[in-house]
């Protein structure tokens, strides 16, 4: 099987008062081998990015004491249109010599790497590392004199 390479990047802001994360821009570049149906490939990647943004910021199954409390879509919060940024997809075609059409997989690869990108971007913005999802940020500390000076 050929090697599958992909990369996603995200731009975001963190509200200092509430810790709310707002995504501004997201770009994904995926090596899909051969895009059999380019529009559908784009759809898979957009969808994967949206799911991944949900994993990183909202989606959480709560089961206190073993009893599930997230039973429906009002408590299990998946991303709505306003939560997501304008997304851009770059399709890279680098045929797989082993597969019959040269195509590689795209469903899952698109699904998993925006969450780490968001975690990294939050680290870049706040200096805090988060290793579990969803990432919950409280109020951010006031800027230090040095940070103010740098601006």
């Amino acid at each position: 099987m050929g090697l599958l390479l992909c990369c996603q990047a995200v731009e975001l802001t963190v509200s200092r008062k509430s810790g709310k994360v707002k995504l501004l821009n997201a770009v994904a570049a995926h090596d899909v081998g051969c895009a059999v149906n380019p529009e559908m490939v784009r759809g898979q990647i957009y969808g994967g990015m949206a799911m991944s943004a949900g994993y990183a910021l909202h989606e959480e199954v709560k089961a206190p004491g073993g009893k599930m409390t997230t039973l429906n879509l009002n408590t299990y919060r998946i991303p709505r249109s306003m939560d997501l940024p304008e997304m851009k997809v770059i399709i890279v075609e680098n045929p797989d010599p082993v597969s019959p059409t040269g195509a590689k997989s795209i469903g899952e690869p698109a699904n998993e790497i925006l969450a780490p990108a968001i975690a990294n971007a939050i680290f870049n913005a706040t200096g805090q590392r988060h290793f579990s999802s969803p990432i919950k940020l409280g109020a951010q500390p006031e800027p230090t004199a040095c940070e103010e000076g740098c601006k």
Partner: protein
Amino acid sequence: MKLFVNNKEIEVPASAMEKRIVEFLREDLDLTGAKNACDIGACGACTILVNDEPSRICIKLVKDFGGQRILTIEGMAAPDGTLHPLQQAFLDCGAIQCGYCTPGMVLTGHAFLLKNSHPTRDQIRQAIFKNLCRCTGYQQIIDAIEKAAPHYQREERGLQAASAPEKQTATKNSKATTLAKGEAG
């Protein structure tokens, strides 16, 4: 009680009054476009248009809709099966994956474009805010609604053009009558 579903008048039997309207449409009228997904009005998959306003029907009863004009996804296409330009745009942009949210999305987009035929992408995002989609990330749905907007602009211009000549002829007629009166006087 009567309902107007997709331009057809439907007599509702008394036994169906207490039914939820989504069940009435799906089971009694066989209009299975509106989906019953979350059952609590959170996801928008059951959206239909009631007097051109999107409405979530999984939490509403048949008796609330007496005499109202209802449009479901089955009524969007022409009677001969030609797709509505908005539906065609959804196909062309690849805005459909599993298709479960699609009827609600198309109808919400249709109601929005009827009100605002020159939308920005942000306005479209706000318009479909209440409809959930798990597959597409909304991007191609927004592309599709944006792509269909020129059709609604043309329709709007057509309506304006159709109503404008009437006014002109009306003014001409009134002039003619005043002239006639003048001549008579």
